[in-house]
């Protein structure tokens, strides 16, 4: 196992396959055997300028299971609206011995400038449309538990790829691990230019799903309709809702993932979401282990204090 020496996890771009595997290995280890309290004495602060239930509670649970103290910081979106303000907030929290920042922000790339300017670890819990690395890692872990290898596997990412940080991080992780990725959705949400990122772009869901090994269904934000990306939810659903019939086009042992929260009946049918191929609840469970691994790895990647 390659030991990663990074204090931060801002994204998966630039990580080697070995580094990604190492995080997954550590997560698997924690899942098999709960650790003692390796992060006792550490404090994890949450800076979230966007709503989150799943990611935030998952990170909090991960911190607790490692013996770290989660620090709930209630940050109104407006007070975190400016780059300088976030930095000031982080430096203030560092002064009271915060060791990890878990940050979610609506602006892509906001952490690239901030992370080098604080000594604490900075972990990206979602930045704009850019990256959501722990989501992609937990997706990868969930699939890896069922596949011996990603080689030759074809994973379809279905839905609003343009505005999805989950899609970007998943693409990077899956490619690094050896899988092929197909982005599928209507052109306004899945522009052809996305192929430059290394995915196959397909606008016909039937063609995309045929013989696929897994599909990761993205949430369709209702505001995309007002913005004119899709004419109506019904029109979108006609082509891209994952119905049992569409899901049946995949390989018989193929899996269904969804990062949540789901719009049942819009991008996915309940029969599929709750069906035997669905890994949706396994994803949620694995999220805690992956985040434990990330909090630990970043802790080790930080230069010793003093």
């Amino acid at each position, binding site marked *: 196992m390659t030991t990663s020496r990074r204090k931060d996890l801002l994204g998966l*771009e630039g990580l080697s396959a070995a580094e990604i595997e190492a995080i997954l290995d550590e997560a698997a280890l924690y899942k098999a055997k709960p650790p003692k309290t390796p992060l006792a004495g550490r404090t994890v602060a949450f800076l979230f300028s966007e709503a989150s239930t799943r990611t935030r509670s998952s990170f909090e649970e991960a911190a607790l299971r490692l013996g770290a103290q989660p620090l709930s910081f209630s940050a109104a979106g407006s007070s975190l609206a400016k780059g300088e303000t976030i930095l000031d907030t982080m430096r203030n929290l560092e002064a009271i011995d915060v060791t990890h920042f878990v940050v979610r922000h609506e602006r*892509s*790339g906001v952490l690239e*400038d901030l992370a080098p300017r604080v000594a604490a670890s900075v972990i990206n819990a979602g930045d704009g*449309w850019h*990256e959501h690395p722990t989501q992609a890692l937990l997706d990868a872990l969930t699939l890896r538990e069922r596949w011996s290898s990603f080689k030759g596997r074809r994973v379809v990412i279905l839905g609003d790829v343009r505005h999805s*940080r989950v899609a970007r991080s998943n693409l990077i992780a899956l490619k690094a691990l050896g899988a092929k990725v197909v982005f599928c959705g209507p052109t306004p949400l899945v522009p052809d*230019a*996305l192929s430059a990122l290394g995915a196959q772009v397909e606008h016909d869901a039937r063609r995309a799903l045929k013989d696929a090994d897994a599909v990761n269904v993205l949430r369709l934000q209702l505001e995309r309709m007002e913005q004119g990306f899709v004419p109506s939810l019904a029109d979108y659903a006609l082509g891209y809702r994952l119905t049992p019939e569409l899901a049946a086009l995949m390989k018989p042992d193929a899996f269904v993932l969804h990062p949540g929260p789901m719009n049942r009946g819009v991008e996915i049918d309940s029969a599929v979401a709750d069906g035997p191929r669905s890994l949706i609840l396994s994803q949620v469970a694995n999220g805690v282990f992956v985040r434990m691994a990330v909090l630990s790895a970043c802790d080790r990647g930080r230069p010793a204090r003093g």
Partner: protein
Amino acid sequence: MAERLLIRGGTVVDPARGVEAARDVLIEDGKIRDLAAGLSKKPGLQGVETIDASGLWVIPGLVDMHVHLREPGREGDETIATGTSAAARGGVTTVLAMANTEPVCDTPAQLRLLRAKADADAKVRVLFAGAVTVGQKGERLTEFARLKEAGAAALSDDGRPLMSAGLMRRALELARDQNLVVIDHCEDLTLSAGACANEGAPALRKGLKGAPWAAETVQVLRDIALAELTGARVHLAHLSAAASVEAVRAAKRRGAPVTAEACPHHFALSDDMIPGYDADWKMNPPLRSREDRAALVEGLADGTIDAIATDHAPHGCAAKAAGFDPAPFGVIGLETALAVSLTELYHKKALTRRELVARLCAAPAAILGLGDRGTLAPGVPADLTLVDPNAEWTPAAPYASKSRNTPFSGRRLKGRAARTLVGGRTVHAL
């Protein structure tokens, strides 16, 4: 007694008159008196104050027809004094200041005020564009005849695209009657809304909202059609897209009265070069693809693009540090335009020396109808720049400009202005 100055030993490059040869230049009372080989050896010119220009090019002072001086309203970012100091350092002797100040330059009174301020503060010659619409709101036309009478050198709503084709048509008709060129910032806002970068792989990868090249080309094609409809002169500002260049090429072949400019950042850089989320690389239009960049160089080489202009747009450090998306659009360029042009166009052999000087000097002067600028004919004001084409240097803050928002900081460049003269007076010397 006449004040005389001799520039000796340089190579005069004056595309407007087809001169490219070793010449001495005699300046008398701020005007060019004579150009000839061996002038310095003439009896009667012994003892005249002399500048040694051996190894240098002697070219007309650069005419930058697209700058933002921020005065009045944003003097913290730039003033007429600092902006024109930056111009002097870059070999630029005439600038056209855009009208998007605060308040907007949309009345004769405002224009007169600015001209008086420039008379007092400016280190180089400053011309002013008047706004096309009141407050640049795109609703009601300004008074073109009165603006012209007050000294407007051109009309432009630059920074704010004029979205109404109907209003643009009337503007062009009235501008033609005043023999004023309309400079248009071509951008269809319905295609570019909310964008901070070029729509392409780099923006998709970084999760940034991009504007497609077509946002520019759609308006370029509209303006060409309206220029042909009205017979008015339209100048297309800061072209960035290959398809726009092709549209202008085809229009010129038909004889349409359109001209165009390109900025050094657009022909020297592309969107794949932007480091991370560094907002010193953010401007409007955005840096586009490598293919677009190559098309701009080609357009400059074959004359489809007439002029090089900077779109010098100063912004303070705090505004630019806000992050790529929230930061304002714009980069400074006056101090680096000549050097970037020499590095990217001349030294890479895309343009000849004569072509390059034409794009920097003669063409913008001609577009603005300045018969006595951009050339070194006897009798014209002695605005000239001595260029050291091979001097290697690396731009770095502090700049003469009040701002430092440029992607060229830290980039090795080849060539620069060794000395700049306005009306025979040295305003910059290395």
